[in-house]
């Protein structure tokens, strides 16, 4: 289990709460800090002493106060800590739930877990620690799990619109295939047209081709 944990969190009540949960569950050495700069110093010092931290739990947002800081956000701390100690496990613990920011944390800063602050965060943080410690898989709070999976972005293009227009004009799939071939489209075979129609049916929640056309007509797409 984690032997040495660093908590970087500027709100005292949260910090205390978190530490009490951690202490209840693990017999670890736990240090807290309110500033990202201090957190990085602690990580560096521990490395120097040969007793490095093996887990960092950090918030993303820190209040500005009288102190001039070099690292002003959780992202910056994560980035600096990663380059200082690549094998450090990092859990971000934040109320931020913007998908873009979270995705970026996983993709760019290679954090190990993201736990959203909320009613269930006490149990979630324990879960996260267990998973992160035992495996290399990442953890995300269940309410945000759709972000960690590759978020399904439903995108269509001009060719889809052309296809829908042809369909609404009453053209058959072989006829459409012929037209697309003449227009120099690469995906003009009847099977790729079929695939496209199926994709569009799913996107537009249509049960069949007729339903699809009536939906897109109602939406003014064609």
């Amino acid at each position, binding site marked *: 289990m984690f032997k040495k944990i660093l908590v970087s969190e500027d709100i005292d009540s949260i910090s205390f709460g978190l530490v009490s949960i951690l202490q209840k569950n693990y017999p670890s050495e736990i240090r807290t800090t309110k500033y990202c700069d201090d957190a990085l110093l602690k990580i560096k010092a521990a490395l120097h002493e040969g007793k490095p931290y093996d887990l960092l739990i950090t918030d993303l947002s820190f209040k500005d106060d009288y102190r001039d800081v070099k690292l002003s956000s959780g992202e910056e701390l994560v980035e600096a800590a990663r380059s200082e100690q690549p094998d450090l496990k990092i859990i971000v613990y934040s*109320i931020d739930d913007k998908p873009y920011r979270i995705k970026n944390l996983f993709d760019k800063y290679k954090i190990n877990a993201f736990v959203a602050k909320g009613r269930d965060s006490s149990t979630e943080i324990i879960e996260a620690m267990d998973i992160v410690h035992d495996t290399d898989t990442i953890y995300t709070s269940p309410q945000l799990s759709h972000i960690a999976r590759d978020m399904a972005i439903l995108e269509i293009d001009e060719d889809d619109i052309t296809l829908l227009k042809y369909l609404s004009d009453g053209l058959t799939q072989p006829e459409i295939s012929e037209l697309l071939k003449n227009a120099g489209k690469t995906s003009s075979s009847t099977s790729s047209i079929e695939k496209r129609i199926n994709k569009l049916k799913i996107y537009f929640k249509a049960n069949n081709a007729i339903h699809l056309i009536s*939906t897109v007509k109602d939406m003014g797409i064609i």
Partner: protein
Amino acid sequence: MKVKITIVTLLILLIAAGCTYSLSSAANDNTIKDITAQAKELDLVAKKWEQKKLPDSAFYYYNASQIKYLDAKDYLKAANTLLKMAQIQYAAGDYPGSEISAMKSLYISKNFKDLNYLLNIYKHLGATHRELSNNDKAIFYYEKAYQIEKDTFEILKLQSTIARVYIAKSEYTTALQLLNKAKKSGAIDSDPIEKAAIIDRIGYSYFKQGNNSALKAMNEAMEIRQHVNDINGLVLSYLHLSEFYNSSDPDNAKLYALKAYAITWQSSNYKRKLRSLLRLIAVSDGKDADMYSHHYAILKNDADHNTQTAENKFKKMLDNAARNADNPEDIAKLEVSKDNNKILTLALMASVFSSVLLFYQLTQRHKKERLLDAYAAETRLSKKIHDEIANELYGTLHYIEHEDIVSGSKKEKLIEQLDNIYLMTRNISRENNDIDTGLRFPVQLKLMLATYSNNGVNVIVKGISKINWEKIESIKKIATYRVLQELMVNMDKHSKATVVLIDFSSEKNKVKIIYSDNGIGTDCPKINLKNGLQNVENRMVSIGGSISFDTKSEKGFHLTLTYPLPILYV
């Protein structure tokens, strides 16, 4: 700032150049000798301007010089100077003005006898009247010139020109008599352009008379003109041939009309262009005819405007000069200052233009700053809500959950309520958080839209990556993000939609975003505007954009957002 400096330097240079061009002091002695000297000086200045291809300025000085010559009773010089003025007016398309100047000149010429002068003035008056379609008067003056002319080639040219006027009068027999005489002249082979003109006129007259040799002559003329690349002549050849084929071979007629019109673009002659268009309209039908009629109307308007401007310009100059005639010594000064005035006007225009540009840039910058301020305030507040209120609330929630301050069902209720407040503050901060306006903007926008996709709703995106986001200002990106977020929140709360499409596209200078869903829609978009959509409109207006509702379709909710792409300063 660099631009501003160059403009200022330019102004100084312009003014300096204007000042150096002033005349040496005008003498006050009224002796004839001095006046003649002044007249000559003015004449020289006029010629200088003419060499510099500034006919307007030359016209000023010729007029001043002409008055001095008259004072000095040098009638020949005065008449010749007036003729020069008439020629300048003719070249600018001011035919009525040119006629008046020429007639003044002719009136003065009663005082002397100079055949060379008479030849020139008659030819000029002939040409002016031809342009004014006074065919009889044109013939009258050309005949007079014809009687004096001694040069064989010039005689041939006059015959051809007179024939041209007879053709315009539809008197083909007389025209042919003259043309055949000209064709027999030995001088004809010295100038292929003139030769082609004569043969073409013969061919055209034959055609009008129903003579079989018409086509042969017209083709011969066309070949000569093609050979020497005589653009002006070729236009006429093509027009005549188009007319020739008009009823017998409409396709050929149209082909020649098109050829004529195409070739007119190689010269700046409005008249030929208009004539070719008239021919094209005559041989076209349907959409083509409409299009050419449209071209004709535009061109005719331009041509009329140009002529009118030329007429007004010269008339004004003459009027001003006449007003100052009581004070002849001042004329020279006046004219000089006039040219200085011109330069000053130019300078003034340049400075006005540059200050307008500067003002525009400043207001744009100010607007930008205001918008960025608003955005900064928003972000700051949301960070405060996030950092302070939400976190404190969460801390309290945490504390109550783990300490035994309250107990039982009351504790559960309190925690639930606190949790609700916590979620609310979190939503506020989420909706107003900072936006990455850099390279990852489109990805971020896509992800934001995708978060509203769930089991109930499919949010479909089209064309986000087709937009050149790098070129678009941060303010506009922020507004785009916020507006779409607002629309998604609205959709989530009210629309009951199951499918939403956001279609991004960019037209010439605009970004266009179409939102459409299949929800319950709204009967009256105005009511809707009062609520959440007012924000959307405000944001669009603040970046110079607009919002429009599609009320045509009965189902769902559709609206279009547009805003301009950045203007590039060159």
